[in-house]
């Protein structure tokens, strides 16, 4: 937490200038994570039947565009398809001269033009062949799959990635519809969740530490201050002052319920001087406004309590990730003090410069003190668990302490499949109960997946995509698997909703529209960025977009 003043102007580098607008979102740490990551895009899995090249892979290419521009380390496109005419109508990263050439090579070439800092490769072999090499998959931080792909391919790819702890994004886009799912490792922790700044304030007004309480001495003459001084007492001190007054008349108790807080708010309001030209005082207005939101006793958020109770937090080993050592140290801190380490930030408020800075220093030094305690615990754990790959940086512990109240662990799940586990089927069944739900579109894509698998294995011919019979059989099959597993019925109206979705998919013969694939590529890239930078909170785990109604929904399947 050293805050030295830089000596002279250090202008930004050309890289900082190029990436300025995004560095304001994920800072140098996020940028570094991005630049160290290599992404695999599996953009097709062979043709659908005789004439067609199958999936167009526009979502995949548009996603990569949105990752290449902000400067991802590198990418590899795996795509055995050759460029056909329909590709030229939907894919911006192909040109007329690309016709008949390797789609992997051509899209790779035109994507690389976007950013000379990014390395790009292409492979025209099918992914199943590449997976034979045990060194292939581990070089990637994330796998993107443009579906629909053959079921067996998807299974082997997603389980290989899961074994290596590599997240997978599986996308499909047809006509005005799209869907994608994110498969994350079983425990995916995030420290920098970037909550709303207001919700991160911890002012500890109800249980001030000695130095903060002592600062009240500075305003013991509040009543006799001149108007200028009185109107510039920081509202934090005003609240602390009136809390003391309140306690005097309430047997030493703090205002605890809503009614008492309203009464306390009146007490604060009554202290404001109104016989001045402004007819009031801004610092008192700020104090009055803060009563209801800042005077709440500390409670541990349930999401954090859950993290403290997880096995990973309680059974540390020498292989435990840094996250769990720090989380465990913070849990010890909480057990001892019943609060989290102080983040140390102070909102802006009406005050004289020097008074504000000295109050800010009280908060900052307490934050440093709390941090020092957590660091000490972490070092103790490291010693106990030695040997470890390296000491956890102080900076990482500091970032953790600042964000402690809002850290998150996502319990990643496998890509949702209809013959998957009961949880998936139950979640789908529940969502179907809502007539406005977009889950029927998700089911439509599942039916598309199985039709494509059957075309690719030769069980159906390519015309099946245009045959109402094939789609209707798919709907029946889906309903069958839902009802047999969940032992519930699906009414006719729900069935009609699923059928309408399949009619829209059938209208497109499995083909996509550039707009919807570009939109989906934006959404998917957003999730990829969050997964790679480990900042903000990624999808858990499935999103459906309906471009007819311009709506999206998230499901945990």
């Amino acid at each position, binding site marked *: 937490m050293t805050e030295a*003043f830089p000596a002279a102007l250090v202008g930004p580098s050309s890289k900082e200038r190029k990436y300025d607008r995004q560095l304001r979102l994920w800072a140098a740490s996020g940028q570094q994570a991005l630049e160290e990551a290599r992404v695999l895009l599996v953009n097709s899995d062979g043709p659908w039947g005789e004439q067609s090249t199958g999936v167009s892979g526009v979502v995949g290419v548009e996603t990569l565009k*949105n990752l290449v521009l902000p400067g991802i380390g590198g990418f590899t496109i795996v795509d055995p398809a050759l460029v056909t005419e329909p590709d030229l109508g*939907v894919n911006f990263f192909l040109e007329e001269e690309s016709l008949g050439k390797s789609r992997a090579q051509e899209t790779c070439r035109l994507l690389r033009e976007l950013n000379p800092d990014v390395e790009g490769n292409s492979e025209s072999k099918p992914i199943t062949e590449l997976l034979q090499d045990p060194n292939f998959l581990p070089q990637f931080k994330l796998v993107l799959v443009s579906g629909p792909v053959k079921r067996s391919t998807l299974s082997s790819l997603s389980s290989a990635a899961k074994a290596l702890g590599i997240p997978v994004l599986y996308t499909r886009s047809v006509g005005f519809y799209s869907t994608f799912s994110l498969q994350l490792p079983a425990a995916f922790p995030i420290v920098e969740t970037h909550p709303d700044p207001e919700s991160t304030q911890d002012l500890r007004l109800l249980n001030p530490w000695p130095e903060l309480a002592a600062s009240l001495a500075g305003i013991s003459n509040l009543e006799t201050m001149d108007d200028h001084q009185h109107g510039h007492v920081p509202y934090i001190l005003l609240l602390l002052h009136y809390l003391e007054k309140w306690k005097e008349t309430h047997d030493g108790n703090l205002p605890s319920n809503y009614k008492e807080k309203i009464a306390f708010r009146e007490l604060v309001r009554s202290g404001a001087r109104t016989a001045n030209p402004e007819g009031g005082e801004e610092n008192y207005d700020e104090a009055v406004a803060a009563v209801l939101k800042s005077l709440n006793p500390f409670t541990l958020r349930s999401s954090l309590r859950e993290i403290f109770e997880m096995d990973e937090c309680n059974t540390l080993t020498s292989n435990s990730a840094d996250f769990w050592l720090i989380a465990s140290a913070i849990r010890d801190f909480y057990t001892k003090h019943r609060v989290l380490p102080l983040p140390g930030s102070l909102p*802006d408020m009406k005050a004289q410069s020097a008074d504000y800075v000295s109050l800010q220093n009280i908060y900052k030094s307490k934050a440093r003190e709390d941090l020092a305690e957590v660091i000490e615990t972490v070092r103790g754990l490291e010693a106990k668990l030695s040997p470890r790959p390296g000491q956890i940086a102080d900076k990482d512990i500091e970032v953790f302490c600042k964000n402690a109240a809002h850290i998150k662990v996502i319990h990643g799940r496998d890509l949702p499949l209809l013959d998957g586990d009961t949880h998936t089927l139950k979640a789908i069944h529940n969502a179907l109960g809502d007539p406005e739900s977009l889950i029927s579109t998700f089911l439509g894509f599942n039916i598309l997946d199985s039709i494509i698998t059957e075309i690719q294995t030769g069980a159906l011919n390519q015309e099946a995509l245009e045959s109402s019979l094939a789609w209707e059989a798919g709907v029946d099959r889906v309903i069958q698997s839902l009802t047999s597993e969940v032992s519930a019925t699906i009414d006719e109206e729900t069935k009609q909703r699923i059928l309408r979705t399949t009619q829209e998919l059938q*209208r497109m013969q499995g*083909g996509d*529209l*550039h707009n919807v694939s*570009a939109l989906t590529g934006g959404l998917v890239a957003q999730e990829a960025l969050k997964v790679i930078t480990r900042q903000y909170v990624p999808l858990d785990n499935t999103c459906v977009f309906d471009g*007819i109604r311009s709506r999206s929904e998230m499901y945990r399947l």
Partner: protein
Amino acid sequence: MVEINQTLRWKHLYNVLSRPGPFSDEDWVPGPETISALESSKILVIGAGGLGCEILKNLALSGFKDIHVIDMDTIDISNLNRQFLFRQSDIGKPKAEVAAAFVEKRVKGVKITPYVGKIQDKDEDYYMQFKIVVCGLDSIEARRWINSTLVSMVDFENPESLKPLIDGGTEGFKGQARVILPTLSSCIECQLDMHAPRPAVPLCTIATIPRQPQHCIEWAHQIAWQEQRKDDTFDSDDLEHIGWIYNAALERSKQFQIPGVTFQMTQGVVKNIIPAIASTNAVIAAATTSEALKIATACNPYLENYMMYAGEEGVYTYTFEAEKKPDCPVCGNLARKMTVDPNMTLEAFIETLGERPEAQLKKPSMRTEEKTLYQRFPPQLEEQTRPNLKLKLRDLIEDGQEIAVSDPAYTIDFRYRLDFS
């Protein structure tokens, strides 16, 4: 030269335009007529930046063949992280021209006509030639201008005069897309208070009691520059100027012991920089062009009328119908109510108009039906009305009286009814 079979090339698009779907209108006639109507639709894109580049690409791949684009800006290095039609070697060139040429070259058969300049340079005759207008702007002022222009162009005798306006906007991981049918549905001005400006730091804080690094930067920008370099016109793109502001802010921050002034923050405050990334632009731009395709072809129902997107935590969207307001200064016929303190001076009232979410007018002039309260131009009238600035509102108007406010940024008058608090 490769000969491309156009029917094969546009196979997927033609599928959706040649077959009815479960949600397309029963009376809709799919097929060649719909396709040729789309291909002959003239469409205007306002802005060739983060959203505009995406919009141009998307329209070209949605079958639009006659696209126009307006942008007054030139390409800067900080655009390259998302404006994917531009390269390092394009820095300094006009965005509209480079973007148009790139998409024309990539998607053969599309004509894109660039105009380098301001939207205000063009008159109603110009805007009348388009079927749809799509906006990818970062300025509220420009949006309000085109909105009021399109509303005022509507002639109920002539359905062609109603130009659907599709608007996109982004900030960081968030954005919104909306469809406006001028005079028929909620317009940009109706929704103005949903996009409130950030409150400004009070001048006295900047001048005398800074507490945050941003206050020190504002001091350097608003006060120190005026005092020490008043003969130089400040240019936020000039690195020497920004460097000077940074150093002045740094000195002040040391004097007040306020840590945290950085060059990046200085640029952010002075230029009012909004974070921007490719992925959010991709989402919002495609949402707008998807609506353009649906409106131009009726292949599926269009958005009524607002979709917001937030990507910080998962994928969140909220789609709703914003309401048309009868007291909208642009498309309504009632004066908008505004509660004011009668003891406020006219000068103070004028200052609040810049920040009030329902007004956001920076250089207003105003009058009642009987008299002019304050008029900025011409100078004689300004001088004549200047003494009113020091008067209290109660001495100038009655409780509940209507005033008309004009602002050089807009062509219309805004009507407000002032109710005393």
